[in-house]
């Protein structure tokens, strides 16, 4: 090898190395703009299904020998961490990203996936993303059911009706008897996003539809992995909330009296999302 070539190659390598260090080690921006650090954990559920929990909504990772199917993708700043976590368990590329609904803690990394990755969600979830000027709106949507077949495996994406929003899909892994519920099951008490078309009245019926599927394990939108019986408990809590608040409205209880009940009995902190996004909408819906 000539000396000139060696010098040139070394220079190129050095430049690439510096660029890589600059890229990966970039200090977070100062002040308000400081980039958030991803903080997630990868859990193995079966040989070919993993869950990434931590920031934002729970992510499911289904591995096939023709690529990976991912359910939800957390916040924008979680993208690199999600990809690194997937790489730690498979060399397969992410072929599909299935969004359970439009919220940014479930769709935040959409825009960073390459064009070759197909992102799929419900028609209403896409519409909500467009209305909210969110980045990374999916190109493919469905209204009732869409199935993805990859590497001999099947994933079923279903819309059962309104609940958390008007566009929540559940993602069912029939071979594993596992379902990812999105935020139709998340936390202890429902967050009804009325601005996103949510409905307390219809929520229980939506869960009833999902419970007709044959599954044992549940990956909720947020929180630890649960069982089918936990979904029934959640469903009954949703119905209890609806019945109790409907009763109070019929008895002409004041807004403050009802607010106190949801705070004390259902854990809706006045500053929390459940109260801020759901309370007045719930009163309006249940009055009808």
């Amino acid at each position, binding site marked *: 090898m000539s000396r000139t070539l060696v010098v040139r190659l070394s220079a190129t390598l050095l430049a690439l190395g510096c660029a890589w260090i600059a890229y990966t080690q970039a200090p977070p921006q100062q002040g308000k703009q400081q980039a958030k650090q991803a903080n997630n954990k990868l859990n193995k559920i079966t040989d070919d299904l993993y869950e990434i929990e931590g920031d934002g909504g729970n992510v499911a990772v289904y591995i096939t020998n023709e690529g990976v199917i991912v359910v939800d993708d957390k916040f924008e700043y979680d993208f690199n961490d999600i990809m690194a976590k997937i790489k730690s368990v498979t060399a397969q590329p992410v072929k599909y990203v299935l969004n359970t609904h439009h919220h940014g803690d479930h769709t935040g990394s959409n825009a960073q996936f390459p064009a070759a990755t*197909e992102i*799929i969600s419900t*028609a209403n979830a*896409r519409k909500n993303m467009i209305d909210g000027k969110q980045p990374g*709106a*999916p*190109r*493919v*949507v*469905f*209204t*009732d*059911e*869409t*199935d*993805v*077949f*990859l590497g001999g495996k099947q994933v079923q994406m279903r819309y059962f009706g309104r609940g958390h929003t008007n566009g929540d899909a559940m993602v069912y892994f029939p071979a594993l008897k596992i379902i990812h519920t999105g935020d139709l099951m998340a936390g202890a008490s429902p967050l009804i996003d009325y601005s996103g078309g949510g409905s307390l009245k219809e929520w229980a019926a939506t869960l009833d539809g999902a419970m007709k599927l044959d599954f044992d394990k549940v990956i909720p939108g947020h929180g630890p992995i649960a069982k089918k019986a936990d979904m029934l408990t959640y469903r009954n809590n949703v119905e209890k909330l609806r019945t109790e608040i409907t009763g109070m409205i019929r008895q002409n209880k004041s807004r403050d009296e009802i607010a106190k009940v949801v705070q004390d009995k259902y854990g809706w902190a006045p500053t929390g999302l459940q109260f801020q996004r759901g309370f007045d909408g719930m009163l309006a819906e249940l009055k009808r």
Partner: protein
Amino acid sequence: MSRTLLVRLSAVAIALGCAWIAYTQAPPPQGKQQAKQANNTISKVADDLYAIIGDGGNSTVYVTNEGVILVDDKFEYDGQDIVDKVKSVTNQPIKYVLNTHLHGDHTGSNERFLPTAEIIAHKNARDNMVKNKAPGVMRVVFTDETDIFLGGKEVRMKYYGRSHTNGDAVIYFPALKILASGDMGANNGPNVDFANGGSMKDWAATLDQVLKLDFDTVIPGHGPVSKRQYLVDYRNVAAGIPTTVTSMVRQGKSKDDIAKVFTTNGGLWANPNVVNKLDQIMAELKN
């Protein structure tokens, strides 16, 4: 440039050239195995929408600035011709292939497009392809409706019920008021594929749903680009066939009597795909 390098580069160029000639000029295999030649024409239906008509089912080409959405892909031997025809109107790659149903004259080039495009069909169409061991089975299916958004344009794929098979989708281009009907409106029918879940009984009701869409132009599964009225007339024949068969059977008329009436009516009624399937049509309507 050094002389050695020049010689080596030339050798590589010649080798590549020879390989290319061998690849593109290979004579068709002899005898029965002779490859069929594609024979299609592309015609403009709207500024950004074209129909490829000739072999097999009609293909529709919707051009966007983020890629092409293709409806149906004819036979296996038409794949390259479809690509060439698309290339003659746009440099955009084919990103989506939407199959109206399972048959090989509409899905024959799927295998070719699978690695680079998303192919979508109705769930029953895929089930039938798997059952029939057809090549080019798609990865993505839907049951009721799926929409594709590409380059600021929208395509709606809808399932309304049984007709030609149990998995026929229509493809609707809302901005253009154009509908690709697949074989639930095609000049070689109404042709019920009973083995793949088709139904003469349900056909007209399925078209009634389709006709609720707002469209002016129909690209049928087979035959020339037509107006909405084509599908209205088609619906009326699809409704008339079961009504006529049922009432004639009640009057004790034979299959031959019915066939005579159909032949006299002419047009779609007299299509061999209808007359030759009278046994099966009568069997379905008995239930």
